[in-house]
């Protein structure tokens, strides 16, 4: 499967070409190049997937293929960074997801970003991102993954800060990068610890079922925990940073400052699931070596799922609602991994996680693109500026509804199947986690329909706009359906969302690689559907027509409401830590210390020398008599000494 190299090379070339020509070509040319390249990649990825999954299984599992593996940088005899391509079920699945979404976003952006300054730059960055993300998923070793991990972070930074003249976008980009960078530091430390004990970076050695590389670390502990636990916890923190797990989730809502297609691609479908992918990649290590860390993953995931869902219920910016929903859904995947067993049916969680990753990517991208379409029409992110849009934007309305049903977990849409598996895996692990997850799922259904009704139903947008007197910046015109380039991806993704649930996913992807048959647990399934439906009905009652209920509820639970709408003040805590503690209490005194203590000491040496020399210079007064006087005194002194001794 040598051609897979093209999947990596093409977007890189596209990035270089588009980046170098900058604005010398017409925007249209640049957009076409980017999109066509992505089209080719998508085709290649599908072909790869088809070829890979139609291969014969060896001993019941799909083989790991490594068509390329080139030594890039050698550290020691054992440790060297290779660049290569690893094809196994999850990486192939990711290839499909990334290329599909990326392709859709490219098409969508042709129209959405039309006429923006820096259109070529936008496409260049999109190519860079696609390249890095693809490189990340096909990584053959952990260091290659880290390399692309960083590249992904940078492309995310560049794309969030695409509107670089807008201070909030710049701040958001900076925040996103620094928070994930902070997490990456733990990732790196984890890699270092792991490689120190195992003497390898290679995934195929680390995650082999009966690997012996961990023998060297047996019994080695640091501060009471096994060293491998430390390593794997560090690696998980890296993943948690990218995947916005509590408490590192703060960057993701702000990242919505980027263009909406970017949010769909990076901050909903692909980059943010890198953390999940990372944990999945290391799943055997987590499971066999450090089960306690894996359980930690489950608990953090469960908490994040609930936490983000609660916040999502009260946000008013539609992109932020989606952002918190993303956090919550990724947490679902994390939980699924955390609760998963290894073999056979016990590996439900793993399979469910990957399945949910796949379906979520599709419907969440759809939601974001739909939201983009809405924003494009009304030029605002705020719910209060919207309403009754279903009349003007039928395609957007229907596709958005499909996505909402999918995320709420209503059959037969894809979200139902994957989420159901997650719930049943959670119940198997612990009823508490299962309960939390069910509640989070219910909240999901609620806030998604709150969102849906606020946008497409309720008071008519035109009336609202007139009432608010928002006629100034283009609100006066009637919103209209988006052009074809924007509508096509919506329809395509909606189609995928409708059918993806019926993919026999377990046959392709499972923890051991062996075939896995999905069994729908009827109790859990019925219960989750009921819960979701009830939530949807509540949301319908509350938000379909403007009622006073939401305000009343907000008043009743004013503490919770205020906390949630301020995201539980976590941002403030971070601001306090960074601004007050690090900036003002560490960095400033340090800078002061440097200037006034260390530097002053050095200057002090110089000043002392100068002072002494000025004093000595006084002797060289130029006065002959003084010289003579000193001379005479000296002579007398010497004479005296000679005389006395």
């Amino acid at each position, binding site marked *: 499967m040598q051609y897979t190299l093209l999947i990596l090379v093409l977007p890189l070339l596209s990035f270089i070409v588009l980046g170098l020509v900058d604005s010398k070509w017409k925007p249209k040319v640049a957009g076409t190049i980017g999109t066509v390249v992505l089209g080719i990649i998508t085709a290649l990825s599908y072909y790869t997937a088809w070829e890979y999954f139609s291969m014969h299984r060896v001993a019941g599992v799909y083989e790991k293929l490594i068509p390329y593996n080139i030594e890039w940088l050698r550290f020691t005899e054992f440790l060297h960074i290779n660049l290569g391509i690893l094809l196994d079920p999850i990486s192939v699945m990711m290839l499909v997801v990334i290329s599909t979404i990326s392709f859709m976003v490219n098409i969508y952006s042709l129209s959405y970003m039309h006429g923006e300054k820096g259109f070529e730059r936008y496409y260049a960055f999109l190519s860079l991102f696609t390249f890095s993300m693809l490189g990340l998923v096909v990584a053959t070793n952990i260091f290659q993954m880290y390399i692309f991990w960083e590249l992904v972070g940078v492309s995310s930074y560049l794309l969030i800060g695409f509107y670089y003249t807008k201070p909030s976008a710049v701040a958001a980009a900076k925040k996103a990068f620094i928070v994930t960078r902070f997490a990456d530091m733990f990732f790196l430390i984890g890699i270092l610890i792991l490689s120190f004990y195992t003497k390898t970076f290679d995934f195929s050695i680390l995650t082999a079922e009966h690997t012996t590389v961990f023998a060297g670390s047996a019994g080695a502990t640091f501060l009471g925990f096994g060293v491998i636990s430390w390593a794997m916890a560090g690696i998980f923190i890296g993943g948690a940073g990218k995947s916005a797990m509590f408490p590192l989730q703060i960057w993701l809502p702000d990242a919505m400052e980027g263009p909406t297609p970017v949010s769909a691609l990076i901050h909903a479908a692909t980059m943010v699931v890198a953390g999940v992918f990372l944990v999945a990649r290391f799943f055997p290590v987590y499971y066999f070596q450090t089960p306690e860390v894996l359980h930690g993953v489950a608990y953090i995931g469960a908490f994040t799922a609930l936490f983000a869902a609660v916040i999502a219920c009260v946000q008013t910016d539609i992109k932020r609602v989606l952002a918190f929903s993303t956090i919550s859904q990724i947490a679902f995947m994390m939980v699924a991994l955390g609760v998963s067993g290894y073999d056979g049916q016990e590996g439900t969680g793993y399979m469910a996680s990957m399945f949910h990753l796949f379906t979520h990517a599709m419907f969440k991208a759809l939601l974001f693109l739909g939201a983009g379409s809405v924003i494009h029409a009304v030029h605002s992110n705020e719910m209060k500026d919207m309403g009754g849009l279903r009349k003007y934007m039928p395609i957007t309305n229907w596709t958005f509804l499909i996505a909402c049903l999918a995320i709420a977990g209503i059959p037969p849409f894809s979200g139902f199947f994957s989420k159901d598996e997650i719930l049943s895996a959670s119940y198997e692990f612990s009823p508490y986690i299962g309960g939390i997850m069910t509640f989070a799922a219910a909240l999901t259904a609620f806030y998604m329909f709150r969102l849906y009704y606020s946008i497409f139903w309720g008071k008519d947008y035109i009336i609202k706009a007139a009432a608010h007197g928002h006629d100034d910046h283009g609100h006066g015109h009637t919103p209209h359906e988006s052009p074809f380039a924007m509508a096509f991806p919506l329809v395509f993704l909606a189609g995928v969302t409708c059918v993806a649930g019926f993919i026999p996913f377990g046959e392709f992807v499972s923890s051991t690689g062996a075939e896995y048959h999905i069994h729908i647990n009827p109790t859990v399934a019925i219960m989750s559907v009921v819960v979701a439906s009830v939530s949807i009905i509540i949301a319908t009652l509350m938000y379909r027509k403007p009622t006073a209920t939401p305000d009343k509820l907000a008043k009743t639970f004013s503490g919770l409401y205020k906390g949630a709408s301020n995201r539980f003040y976590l941002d403030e805590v971070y601001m306090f830590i960074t601004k007050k503690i690090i900036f003002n209490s560490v960095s400033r005194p340090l800078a002061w210390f440097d200037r006034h203590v260390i530097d002053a000491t050095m200057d002090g040496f110089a000043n002392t020398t100068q002072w002494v020399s000025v004093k000595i210079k006084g002797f060289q007064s130029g006065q*002959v008599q003084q010289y003579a006087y000193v001379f005479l005194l000296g002579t007398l002194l010497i004479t005296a000494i000679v005389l006395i001794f």
Partner: protein
Amino acid sequence: MDLLNNILSGSIPMEAYLGVSLIMFFAGVYGFLSRRSMLMILISIELMLNAADINFVVFNRYLFPGHLEGFYFALFTIAIAACETAVAIAIIINIYRNLTSVEVGNLDQMKE
């Protein structure tokens, strides 16, 4: 009377000459250190040189009679003193032309 007789009889002791030159020398030192006028300093230097001359001659006369080292030394010193005075006075007059003063206190520009 006895003492006076003792002093006045016999030859003059060498220490007497040395004492005289000593007083002259240190009078010169005092002048050199205390006076501000350059001419006064020059006069003091003359005194010191003169004192040295006396010593040369006296040591020659008392310790090495028949030789002429000290004698010549004194002779040449007189010559050199004369040269030095001539040059010094030329300089002083020149300085006086520039600064209208002959005080050494004003002459510390050379240190900078």
